């Protein structure tokens, strides 16, 4: 069972102070502040993917497609209909959530695990193809440009610093909602399915219903992150729906640690800063990230955050299964199958 760890609170204070002071102390020029914005955006995206991986114990290869979809929806509304980005921040998650509901309904009724991963991969690539080809609506390969930034009482949130604080508030909001949801009936139902689907069903938890809703919720969250991206960088293109961003979210989640609330946030910080640090290496970067991902999966399966938690000794041991990547996956026939 999930024990609310004291670390979450004691850790939180200095981290929050650092987060608040970062743009005025360490990250002083606008380029570096842009990195902070990116951290917040990837963190929301990572948290949403972790909802599928950590809470549901499933995997979606189409997650970046929902990210890009949210970005396009918000961008399109602002550009074509002149609707305020604020509305876009609501419309993007709603739209992504609805599409997630539909696709989740199609996919989760029948498939779990590996099959689900491949099905969502198919949907994701289909979405990417449409974004690339449907030129009149999506702008084709070059995408959409000059997306307006949001404005508050007539003041445009255009500077990196303002946008960072704006994104930080939203990120904290997302973390807060997620932590509430874990303890709520809904979150417990989802976890019970993750732990043992047949058992959950037998006590009257409708597995498909909860999984479809949870999937849709994660899609809405990543759609929201996409809208944040669109109005900050002010352009969108089909790559946002592609496997490269999928890979980035995957690194954010796995490096940080699945099934932990702060893991993906930490993963996002690590990813953005390391990738910035390696910027001079250009095309070698993704090669290195591939190696890093493999090493993390090999040697630190539960990620950096749980490793830190363990190191900080004051904590009671969390239940063993919780921090493991896909701990629900003992469904391998012939009992765990250590062979090969």
């Amino acid at each position, binding site marked *: 069972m999930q024990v609310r760890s004291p670390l979450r609170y004691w850790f939180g204070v200095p981290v929050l102070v650092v987060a608040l002071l970062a743009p005025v102390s360490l990250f002083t020029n606008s380029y570096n502040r842009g990195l902070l914005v990116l951290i917040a955006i990837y963190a929301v995206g990572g948290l949403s993917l972790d909802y599928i991986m950590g809470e549901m114990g499933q995997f979606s290869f189409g997650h970046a497609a929902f990210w890009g979809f949210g970005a396009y929806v918000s961008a399109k509304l602002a550009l074509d209909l002149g609707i305020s980005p604020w509305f876009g921040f609501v419309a993007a998650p709603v739209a992504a959530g609805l599409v997630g509901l539909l696709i989740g309904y199609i996919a989760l009724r029948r498939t779990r695990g590996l099959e689900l991963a491949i099905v969502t991969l198919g949907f994701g690539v289909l979405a990417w193809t449409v974004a690339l080809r449907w030129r009149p609506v999506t702008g084709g390969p070059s995408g959409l440009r000059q997306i307006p930034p949001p404005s508050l009482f007539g003041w445009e949130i255009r500077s990196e610093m303002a946008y960072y604080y704006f994104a930080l508030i939203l990120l904290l909001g997302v973390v807060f909602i997620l932590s509430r949801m874990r303890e709520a009936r809904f979150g417990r139902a989802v976890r019970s399915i993750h732990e043992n689907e047949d058992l959950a069903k037998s006590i009257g938890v409708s597995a498909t219903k909860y999984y479809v809703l949870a999937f849709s919720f994660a899609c809405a969250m990543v759609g929201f992150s996409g809208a944040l991206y669109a109005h900050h960088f002010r352009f969108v293109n089909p790559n946002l729906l592609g496997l490269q961003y999928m890979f980035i979210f995957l690194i954010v989640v796995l490096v940080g640690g699945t099934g932990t609330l702060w893991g993906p946030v930490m993963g996002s910080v690590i990813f953005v800063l390391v990738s910035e640090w390696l910027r001079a290496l250009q095309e070698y970067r993704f090669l290195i990230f591939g190696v890093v991902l493999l090493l993390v999966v090999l040697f630190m399966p539960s990620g950096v955050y749980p490793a830190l938690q363990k190191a900080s000794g004051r904590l009671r041991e969390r239940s063993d299964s919780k921090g493991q990547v896909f701990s629900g996956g003992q469904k391998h026939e012939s009992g765990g199958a*250590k062979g090969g």
Partner: protein
Amino acid sequence: MNWDIIGQQLWNGLLSGSIYVIFAAGLSLVFGVMRVINMAHGELTMLGAMLLYTVTKLVGLGYFAGAALVVVVMAMAGFLVNRVTVRPFLGRSELVVILSTVALSFMLLNGSLVVWGSTPKGVDEPFNEIVKLGGVYITTAGLLLVGVCFTAVLALYLMLTRTKLGKKTRATGQNLLGARLIGINTTAVYDTTLIMASGLAALAGVLIVLVSTASPNLGQPLLITGFAVVIVAGMGNVAGAVAVGLFLGVTEALFGQFISTYYRQGYLYVVMIIVLLLRPQGLFGRK
């Protein structure tokens, strides 16, 4: 309706369908035996094509010698793929293996982009005459491709059904624990399965350059097409993958000709999604 155009598209569809067949056969084999989805399968094909380019253009080997060398080397690399990205994770969840092979795929893709750059490279075919059959233009290199594909898949089929190794392989796929209990060395079976699969993947790579160019970016679209074939056929069903690969190759070409070139690839995913809705276990899969 112009029959020549239809005939030409049937031929083109046969070419791409043959590639799908040999590609999906390897993917399906690994899934069927090991219940592992090898996300790096597309990059193994890509490496086959790029290495062939290197040994023919830069080292100066002929096409056939180069192709044989590349396939053998890549097959041996399959052993490493198993030992580095699959075997360490087998005790853990199935999904972890997806992640490790995704990591491998990213390493291979980005490594290849560094080594070869993203511009497509041409490889000289051993022969390339154009034969006009009715109104349809057929290349001899294309005939070679189709012939080799079907020989390879037939050989795989015979190996699985007629040899002792094939029986061991199928037994391992059906019941790992049972196979071990009766004394089958499942570790060796897993090794040979990935060796065969990478060999097939590389063979697809060296055949692709007969009708197209080699580029580091050819792996990912092929992987996704391969999944469409494997899912429509039913996961792990090698024989089904052959029929579906051919069918999808041909209908995709016709779709591209008569309906929309733009959404040609989208066609495959739509077929995949429809099949999943109506028959989630695939056309030839058992429930």
